[in-house]
């Protein structure tokens, strides 16, 4: 009896690695197996879209590129009751490192870039995926990485070009010159064009979908057209735009009231849309949710902005965009105009709108500008008039290149307002930002300084990575 006890004891005492082996948590997958099946590999990329479409992410709603850039430029006016510096500082062009304002897009984009890099290496190395799924996922991840870097470099200038998941290496990166970032964007997009399907696919990546919720070859082409335009590679921009505009079976300008519907309802203007998925608040789009001002008026939490007087007054009275894409509410005798591209703001209503990321309207304007820059006045006019016609505005009668470019710039402001920061980025790339903002900023209660065209890097990153340097003008 005693001996058995002792033997049992000794057996129990032997430290054994089996006793400390645990299975991975039942609630999650691990990096080693997440890319070993189609469904889970797709789910990682779908996760990027789902996060993007969420309230509070950079794509829509209260922390979106559209809102922040709209405030920084001359599109949006901040409600006087708003006391949150994360809005006030964008609005007054007085972003502050001390108050940690201005870093939202930086902090929002890099975690998604990590996922893209994880997919690119994980999917690339996996041998268990259906080949079609594998190429598609690689294409989507490359496209997304290019998409995020496009915004990062345009908002922050030179940004660290992180292309791997090796945090040890990445933690000590310095800023990469913008030209090199652009070069990577072009490489990624060109590869994505080759890898991606020309059809719009569903969540299995093996069947087509009436919706346009996953970027495909056309999305890569559209972004490439835009990137070439920003790089002033006019003919490249034009030829990429051609590819899209020429495929009229896929893409046509929609009627004014249909341009922001979901593709499945016949909106063939969409190139890439996002579905609102994650949030507990079930809405059509978060843009409608925050921009459409209720009859009770603005408030500092959920409806902090309205359209600037300057933008509203820029429209011709006959412009359908003024009457269909802008609405107003009267509170205490004061009229507040707000963006009304997305119309369904009530929660729990059937979904008819998806958040538009890229659409054909922009591609026409890209080609118009690219053509005008190359001296193709007639071609530019035709593209411009396609947009004007949809807005019920008469054809342009401007013939000289410089005036035509000015008209195109103006048309971009009217067509693309409060969409993905177009106005802010256009002002910067056309060097108009100082002349416009030195007038606009004082009206917003701030003072303009050319340094303010770049947002500041977050202090926490400067502290953690001492190879990073702050943008000029910021302490």
């Amino acid at each position, binding site marked *: 009896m005693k001996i058995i*006890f*002792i033997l049992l*004891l000794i057996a*129990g*005492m032997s*430290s*054994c*690695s089996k006793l*400390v*082996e*645990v299975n*991975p*948590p*039942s*609630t999650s997958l*691990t*990096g080693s197996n*997440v890319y070993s099946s189609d469904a*889970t590999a797709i789910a*990682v990329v*779908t*996760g990027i879209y*789902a996060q993007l479409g969420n309230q509070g992410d950079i794509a829509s709603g209260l922390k979106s590129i559209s809102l922040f850039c709209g405030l920084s430029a001359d599109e949006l006016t901040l409600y006087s009751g708003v*006391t949150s*510096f994360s809005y006030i500082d964008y609005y*007054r062009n*007085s972003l*502050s490192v001390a*108050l940690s304002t201005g870093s939202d897009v930086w902090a929002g984009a*890099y*975690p998604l870039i990590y*996922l893209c890099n994880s997919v690119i290496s994980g999917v690339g190395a996996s041998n268990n995926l259906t080949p079609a799924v594998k190429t598609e996922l690689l294409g989507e991840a490359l496209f997304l990485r290019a998409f995020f870097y496009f915004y990062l470099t345009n908002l922050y200038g030179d940004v660290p070009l992180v292309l791997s*998941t090796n945090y040890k290496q990445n*933690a000590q990166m310095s800023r990469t010159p913008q030209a090199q970032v652009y070069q990577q964007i072009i490489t990624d997009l060109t590869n994505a064009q080759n890898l991606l399907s020309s059809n719009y696919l569903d*969540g*299995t990546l093996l069947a087509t979908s009436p919706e346009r919720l996953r970027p495909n070859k056309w999305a890569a082409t559209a972004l490439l057209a835009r990137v070439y335009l920003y790089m002033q590679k006019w003919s490249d921009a034009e030829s990429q735009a051609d590819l899209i505009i020429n495929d009229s079976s896929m893409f046509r300008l929609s009627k004014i009231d249909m341009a922001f519907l979901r593709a499945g309802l016949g909106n063939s203007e969409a190139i890439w849309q996002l*579905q*609102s*998925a994650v949030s*507990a608040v*079930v809405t059509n789009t978060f843009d409608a949710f925050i921009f459409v001002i*209720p*009859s*009770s*008026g603005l*408030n*500092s939490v959920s409806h902090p902005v309205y359209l600037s007087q300057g933008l509203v007054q820029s429209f011709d009275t006959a412009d359908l965009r003024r009457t269909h894409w802008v609405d107003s509410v009267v509170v205490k005798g004061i009229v507040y105009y707000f963006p009304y591209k997305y119309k369904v*703001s009530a*929660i*729990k209503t059937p979904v008819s709108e998806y958040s538009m990321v890229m659409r054909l309207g922009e591609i026409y304007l890209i080609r118009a500008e690219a053509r005008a820059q190359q001296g193709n006045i007639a071609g530019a006019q035709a593209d411009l008039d396609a947009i004007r016609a949809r807005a019920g505005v008469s054809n342009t009668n401007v013939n000289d290149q410089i005036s035509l470019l000015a008209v195109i710039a103006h048309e971009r402001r009217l067509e693309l307002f409060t969409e993905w920061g177009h106005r802010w980025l256009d002002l910067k790339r056309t060097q108009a930002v100082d002349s416009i903002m030195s007038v606009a900023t004082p009206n917003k*209660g701030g003072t303009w300084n050319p340094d303010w065209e770049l947002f500041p890097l*977050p*202090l*926490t*990153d*400067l*502290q*953690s*990575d001492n190879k990073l340097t702050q943008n000029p003008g910021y*302490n």
Partner: protein
Amino acid sequence: MEISNLGKGLPCATWKLLPQQVRRAMRLTAILLTVVCVNVSAHSYEQQTVSFSGKNVSLIKVFSSIERQTGISFFFNYAIVEKTKPVTLDLRNVEMDELLGIVLRGQGLSYYKSGKTIFIVKDGDQQKYSVQNDATGVSKDKINVKGKVVNEEGSPLIGASITVKDGNKSVLTDEKGSFEIKNIPANSIIIISFVGYQKQIVNVDEVGKAVIVLKQATNILDQAQVIAYGYTTQRLSTSNISSIRSADIERQPVDNPLLAMEGRVPGVFIAQANGLPGSGVTIRVQGQNSINNGNDPLYVIDGVPYTSQMLATTSGGPLGNSGGQPLNNATPGGNPLSYINPADIERIDVLKDADATAIYGSRAANGAILITTKTGKAGNAKTDINVYQGIGQVSHKLHLLNTQQYLQMRHEALANDGLTPAPTDYDVNGFWDTTRNTDWQKALLGGTAQFTNANASVSGGNSSTQYLVGGMFRYATTVFPGSFNDKKGGLHFSINTHSNDGKFHLQLSGNYMVDDNHLPQIDLTNSALQLAPDAPPLYNKDGTINWMTNPAGTSTWFNPISNLYNLYSSNTDNLISNAKLGYKLIKGLEIKANLGYTNLQTNETSQSPDYAKPPELRSSTPLTAVFSNSNINSWIAEPQLDYINVFGKSKLGALIGSTIEQQTSNGQKITGTGYPADQLLGSLASATTVIVNSTIAAVYKYNALFGRLNYNFDDKYLIDLTGRRDGSSRFGPKNQFHDFEAIGIAWIFTNEGFIKKNSSFMSFGKIRGSYGTTGNDQIGDYRYLDVYTPLSQATPYQNTSALTYLNLPNPYLEWEESRKLQFGLDLAFLHDRIIFNGTYAINRSSNQLLPYNLPIITGYYNVTENFPATVENRSLELALTSTNIRASKFNWTTTVNATIPRNKLVAFPNLANSSYSYSYVIGEPINVVQAFHYMGVNAQTGVYQFSDQHGNITTSLNLLTDRTKRINILPTIYGGLENRVTYGDFDLNFLFQFVKQINSNLRFGNVNVPGFFSDGNGNQPTSVLGSWHQPGDNAKIMRFNSNGSLASSFGYVTSSDAAFSDASFIRLKNVSLSWKTPDNLIRRIHMAYIRFYVEGQNLITITKYTGLDPETLSLNALPTLSVFTGGVQLGF
């Protein structure tokens, strides 16, 4: 009054005082002897009267009571006396002869007196013994001595050591408490000792079958201290251990036992997160070892490890955190020790050095806190009922601006900015009634919290089985308006039993508590300090929430009272159970097992009804309720082999054991939205959309092999060796196992003959030292894995699932290691009336496991990593206990302790190129605040100016390089001073806690720039009144600013050296006064005792700190309350 009775009560002295005939009497073969060493009275016994009362008590108890009262010793044959019938007595002040006559009547026993000794013998044997006594005479022959050692309740003491003085023989008692020493000289003196009991010295002239009754030690040096897998005493320990006992805990009306330790334990710093019931409590043993997580000690309750943090799925609502690690940016709230009834606790022992903790290996880098619950004692069933009731209030208010001062500030701020009141400046634009002046601290925090606490227990048993069953109930409300409350109910039981042959031993214990906590979701303190004094009334005339809406129907302020309708409730069930089994294989060798199970289940709900929302948000924000649950259960099995033996003057103990442990954590946080009505928020079924926010399903496994060897030579030289090999599932497969070891040595120099002879003043002196390694695996589970977790989607994207990553993986994770070196000196003077303990500790932690900060460009803010830094904590711990007065009716004891901690970063290879190049400085404390240097207000512009890194004066700073000043916000000295005075039946105890520290002051304003108004908030402390008004002003506060354009400047100044100042405090932490009814009074109503008491907590605070409470150091947290209670304790 007798001031002192020094020199009495010493065993040796007592022995020598015994007259010759008594010593002779001890030769009698059949007599069992009891030597009692109490204060011998100067009176002869004939003149003495004695008292005794009790139902069905054993004669042994009666005798020991008489011994206590008179100082007379009893000698008797245990075997005979054990068989006598119990007696029931109620006698007061009778002659001893009368009492003895009553108790011996009909028992077949007689007694006779000899000097100061009473011999109990069988009827008619008196003559026989005296004869034999004479006949044997004084023998010089060698003899054999047999005997038995029992405690006062008659239970055998197993493993007590019997040492022959001046010889080399020693033995241990067996499982029946018996011993035999062969072949020793008659006239030998034997010393009987056992951990936690008073040592006895007995002269053995001849063979005797003696029962030696050892009394529990009352001297602090000799009381049992609980250590890992065993017991020791302060006298014989080689480690650094501090203890508090049930008496200390019971004097304090606290709901978390950790709070009873505040100010009482050297080397341990404790702070409460806020004044709400069930609040978080942060505890640091010998400083902060880890830079930013994993600083919790290991909690062990009756041998079962207990969680130190709640699960991250429980938000804890307003409870505040316990200094825990943020897991995926979620810090759990509340404290798991809140779910243990302080009244069930017998003692808490804090193990601090490597010698004491290395046997816990990987988990005790931050010390170990051993909690031992109460067990029953042999005797008749005793019932104890204890009920108290009390009140609590916020005792300190901030000086804030009144309406007149406030409006002046706001108007000046607008004028400074060239603005006129905007339509949204409701406080000054005439929309609000500017004649109102509300003291929001009074309105929101001015209530009185009520406490009701009841404990009842029954205990008893016989010498082989003892039991205790207890129950508790506690009800506490808050100082907030509304009927928020916390209700707790609990059960505790303990059963101890051993087999008749004494070989098998079993102890079972269980603690169960149910807590039902109803609080508002948000602490109202922040609002109380910031609301504009002219803000509207909280309620409309009809009793509804007053939103003071503007004509468009939009609220003009955020009414804090709405928080009271955002209900938070937390229901917790906590079970801790354990079993200890032991079987004596052969003499000195025991096989033991410790088995335990704990289960901590918490369900939380937070409801956000429309009623609590500003009207304009009701249409756009859906009705939401958050439900979360968490469950942590663990089991442990620890088989052990324990060996103890004595060889001459040497005593050897050896322990070898193994731990197999598993902890399973499961948690979920679920949000339901789209409810049709406020009334349905309690049911998830009514939600139209349900989202799972987070789920936790983690398994933690732990396995270890440990051993300990201790050796004691002649109670002079002590050495203790421990080792442990640990494996934890929290590490990658390559680094799962690690070894830890420690050595402790001590020299009791006062036991050296040459010192003993020359030192009558010093009664005890010990030098000790220890060195060893311990570890830390307090990181989240699965951190070495690259984990992808499902995104919860209300409307799945393209109707498919989505995944995202949880954290950056680090497959190379290794154990963290702390090296601890400690030296100690323990001294006692004047026969142990003054006891001093001093310890100097140097702890170095390296390879620290923590979330290593990363730039977000890497994809995440941090990665769990072995940190290259070495952090050193030095602490000097001093404790002094002095019995100032010890007299029959009047006693006064003083205890003082102080700790001087020093923390610094000693090494950080390649710091300049790490994420911490701007945060840490080698040679400075790890949480040093790097501050700007304040240079006053620019007389021309009215804006703060600072000195930059080059010494130039500037108003715009480089946030990375201009932080030239370093401020240490860790406490630099802390401790407590306790006095206990008893006079007759009165008992007064008071404890002062003191902390010397620096922390942020409110000199420059509250949360926002003075002059800024937002959502109804904008008030400021009166310190801002000295602001700059016009060019040329030499002010300390910058100009008021309404639009936030000076927000950065305000941010700089609150991070400047001038924003930190002395936050030291001395606090009357605890006062208790009790009165016990005199025995004669109580006996008439057949009760054991009635005790009335009043207690107070945090009654007086002396501080220069400008915030609300120097303990919470927060502007958002309800201060710790001043509590005053009164109660009664009844014993039957």
